[in-house]
């Protein structure tokens, strides 16, 4: 029988129909899809024994408990530790990205010495012995010239044993210039001291709150301990707690709140005092608490016998709903309603500090929010704000100082903190750029550990120029960040997954919590624990400096410092302290609305953004997001990929502009513009958005790294290049919520 065309076609069609009735196509499809997943170049965890190590993530100040999954010695995944008091199993994008930092290409692999021009990126790998002796030699020379105070040290925080070792080194060496990263902690510590007389930090009992009033705090955008805040927020929702967000921009936190109060930017403190006015006027305040525990509510007579107005007078006289409405741009009825609801809630709580808390803010505002909490009795009770004194283990005995050291320590701090002008401040690091150029004396050496000022401090363009003039810059960074790239010496620390270190209490937690960060894997490169390096530098300096460091190495120092806690910390990873009972250590022994000693009081201090309104008709403000890390540690490659294309598109950052403003300026979605401020200028793109009010330009913090590697750097613009600090006249801390700006189409 001949086949023929038609029969052949019929056979083919029959074959196709028949094949469709067999599992062949479906099975093949399934097998092929599995085959594509197992191509040899697809990254797959290695085979081996799986183990888990519990430690602490110290990438941000949140300090979550982490459970690291390993296959053999390879770190494969980081998850939140279940039941941990900070994060209870939760973890953020940054924390998840730990393995990218551990194995990423921007790690510094050995001590490096600059051989090219500053910032050129030409390095010579040197031995640790040489690195330590070079630092000691320089420090020794300055000390021999009786200029020890010209050595500065910049740290992310001043708590914890490594920070204490640095402080000790500089003290016995003779420099008062230990600085720490600026944040709302500066202002909160100050406000706590002014109201409670306690040196310590506040804790917020969010899980028991029934009404959360947030004055611009990005409680879902990295404020406090970020993952803890997410957990707390879930609790708030399940407890049917009311959340009110006071903020000019419709942030994620505002969008998730029950009510968004869009105040004029920078007027949050006026609203807090306006609420106090209504609460006092309508007698809605907790009289029992105010009578028993508070001072300065009514008029009082000070030590000099002068009559002082009380807080009652202050708010009743100045912050009527009409005045408050005019300042804040809210409706009078809304202000009154909010005040009543807040005061009538069973356990209300007010928090402040804008965004993720990187800008300290004014003392007047923080004291106003404290006063609001005190009025409703939410100070020192469950669901309110608690005062947590400093952890005892951190209070080391003072070292002995020789004559040079004593003389150096008597010098005024370069940043003027604690001096005549700003007696309340402990640190004024935000002004580093200006201080390096026109401070009281030139800084001749700067040690930077765990912090990245060239990226992270406001006015980073200026700071970069100023740092270029420092004769000797030493970075202890594990990564080739913007500051390390400019350094003379890089002495890389182990990253948190490789080192043993105490983790001091976390800001904002309602309980003191001491944790231990444990090595999860062996150091990948020729890095060294900064604690060890400090001890070695001290020993190389000899004399009284060496005598203050009797420990053979950091580990023995840590064990001595933690004493009996060490064994428990090593076993459990963390140690929860008790919440101290309500007490006040002010001169009056009460909560002071107005501090009897310093006269610091709740106030609305208008902070005028820098710049000429004629040249810069708009105002630029920064915003935070959980998808970007605004701090000293960069966004991970994973995080950069998670950012929307309305924020970052093809390497360009998009700034939010209200369509009304854009119309006036003749701008359309996606237009490339030059964003100029008195501090700097940058090329950005426009994203039209009703999230921001007219006249405002909002830009994300956390982009625009210029160092690191191509996966992290070269994406967008660094907000800090465009902003400059504005001092609060009382505290001297940076209170800039924005800066004047202009947009010009290119």
């Amino acid at each position: 029988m001949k086949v023929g065309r038609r029969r052949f076609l019929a056979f083919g069609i029959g074959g196709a129909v028949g094949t469709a009735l067999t599992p062949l196509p479906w099975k093949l499809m399934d097998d092929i899809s599995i085959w594509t997943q197992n191509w040899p170049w697809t990254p797959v965890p290695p085979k081996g024994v799986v183990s888990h190590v519990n430690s602490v993530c110290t990438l941000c100040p949140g300090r979550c408990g982490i459970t690291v999954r390993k296959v053999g010695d390879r770190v494969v995944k980081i998850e939140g530790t279940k039941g941990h008091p900070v994060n209870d199993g939760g973890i953020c994008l940054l924390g998840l990205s730990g393995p990218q930092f551990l194995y990423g290409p921007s790690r510094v692999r050995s001590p490096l010495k600059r051989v090219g021009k500053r910032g050129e990126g030409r390095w010579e790998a040197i031995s640790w012995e040489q690195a330590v002796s070079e630092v000691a030699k320089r420090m020794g020379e300055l000390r021999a010239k009786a200029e020890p105070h010209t050595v500065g040290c910049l740290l992310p925080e001043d708590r914890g044993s490594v920070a204490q070792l640095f402080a000790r080194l500089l003290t016995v060496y003779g420099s008062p210039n230990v600085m720490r990263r600026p944040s709302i902690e500066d202002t909160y510590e100050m406000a706590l001291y002014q109201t409670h007389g306690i040196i310590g930090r506040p804790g917020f009992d969010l899980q028991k709150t029934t009404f959360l009033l947030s004055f611009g705090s990005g409680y879902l955008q990295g404020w406090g301990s970020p993952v803890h805040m997410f957990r707390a927020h879930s609790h708030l929702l399940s407890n049917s707690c009311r959340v009110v967000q006071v903020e000019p921009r419709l942030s994620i936190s505002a969008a998730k709140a029950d009510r968004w109060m869009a105040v004029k930017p920078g007027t949050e403190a006026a609203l807090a005092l306006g609420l106090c006015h209504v609460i006092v006027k309508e007698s809605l305040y907790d009289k029992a608490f105010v009578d028993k525990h508070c001072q300065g509510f009514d008029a009082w007579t000070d030590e000099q016998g002068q009559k002082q107005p009380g807080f009652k007078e202050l708010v009743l006289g100045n912050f009527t709903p009409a005045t408050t409405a005019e300042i804040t741009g809210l409706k009078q009825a809304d202000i009154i309603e909010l005040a009543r609801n807040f005061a009538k809630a069973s356990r209300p709580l007010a928090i402040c500090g804008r965004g993720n808390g990187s800008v300290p803010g004014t003392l007047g505002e923080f004291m106003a929010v404290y006063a609001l909490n005190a009025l409703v009795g939410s100070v020192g009770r469950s669901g309110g704000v608690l005062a947590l004194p400093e952890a005892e283990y951190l209070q080391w005995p003072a070292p002995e100082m020789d004559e040079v050291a004593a003389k150096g320590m008597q010098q005024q701090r370069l940043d003027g903190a604690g001096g005549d002008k700003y007696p309340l401040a402990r640190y004024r690091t935000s002004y580093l750029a200006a201080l390096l150029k026109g401070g009281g004396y030139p800084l001749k050496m700067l040690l930077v550990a765990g912090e990245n000022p060239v990226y992270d401090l406001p006015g980073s363009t200026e700071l970069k120029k100023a740092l270029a003039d420092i004769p000797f810059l030493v970075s202890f960074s594990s990564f080739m960040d913007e500051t390390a790239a400019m350094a003379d010496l890089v002495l890389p620390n182990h990253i948190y997954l490789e080192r043993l270190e105490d983790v001091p209490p976390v800001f904002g937690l309602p309980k003191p919590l001491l944790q231990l960060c444990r090595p999860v894997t062996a150091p990948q490169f020729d890095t060294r624990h900064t604690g060890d390096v400090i001890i070695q530098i001290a020993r190389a300096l000899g004399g009284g400096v060496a005598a203050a460091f009797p420990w053979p190495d950091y580990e023995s120092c840590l064990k001595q410092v933690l004493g009996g806690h060490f064994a428990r910390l090593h076993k459990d990873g963390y140690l929860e302290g008790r919440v101290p009972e309500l007490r006040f250590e002010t001169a009056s022994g009460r909560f002071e609305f107005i501090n009897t000693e310093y006269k610091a009081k709740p106030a609305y201090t208008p902070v005028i953004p820098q710049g000429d309104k004629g040249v810069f008709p708009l105002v630029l403000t920064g915003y935070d997001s959980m998808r970007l890390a605004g701090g000293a540690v960069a966004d991970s490659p994973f995080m950069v990929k998670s950012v929307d294309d309305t924020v970052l598109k093809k390497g360009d950052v998009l700034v939010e502009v209200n369509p009304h403003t854009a119309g006036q300026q003749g701008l359309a979605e996606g237009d490339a513009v030059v964003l100029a401020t008195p501090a700097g200028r940058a090329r950005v793109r426009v994203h039209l958005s009703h999230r921001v009010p007219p006249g405002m330009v909002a830009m994300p913090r956390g982009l625009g790294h210029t160092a690191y590697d191509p996966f992290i750097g070269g994406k967008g613009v660094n907000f800090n290049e465009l902003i400059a600090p504005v001092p609060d006249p009382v505290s001297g801390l940076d209170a800039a919520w924005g800066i004047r700006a202009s947009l010009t189409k290119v």
Partner: protein
Amino acid sequence: MSTVEEKSQEVTEEQPDDATPVDPPEPPPATEAEPKGGILPAFLIGIVASLIVGWVVFPQLLYSKKRQPVDFNHAIHVREVGNDCAGCHYFREDGTFSGIPKLDKCVECHAEPIGISREEADFIEKYVATGTEVPWYVYAKQPPCVFFSHAAHIKMGHMECATCHGDIGESEHARVYQENRITGYSRDIWGHNISGYTRHTWESMKMADCARCHQKENVHQSSVQTKKGACFVCHK
């Protein structure tokens, strides 16, 4: 059918018209006349052939057959070692699962040959004497994108071994390991019936099988996206 034929007829008729009148008419192309009829049988043959290929030949081609390195007798081990499966496949103190025993576990009993079988002598000579691990083929091996915890299923879920592994414990000879030539995984994952039809839970180990039970037992049915099981339970 007829329409197709008519049309093709028309085409054939039109062909001479297309030729230009100037050139002498060429003889029609030397094609043989298209055979009529037989279309339905051809169609049916196609169906039958493809059914045979799909149901019988394809599975034969898809899987290669491999013998286990040692003809292992589960039944005798369960009897002699005792403690059911856990005699050899046990949980370590830290909760991790030992999986297929390593050679040192075998050597606990087989340091010297037990009995006189040829298999036993081979095993001793090839593996025990040289200290080489037996390269077992694993019927239940899953791709690396799947996270599976025996502890979660046995200790927490109180499942029986047989629910997934069937009556392997009663087998007296090692089954032939059939490896999928495309994926490299065992035929046991898809199931021996090429259609994917199964009667018992242990007959296949595809994602749908895991999901079915996870759904029934309400294991983390919390995914916001799928409104079903959370993907991350298995795909970490």
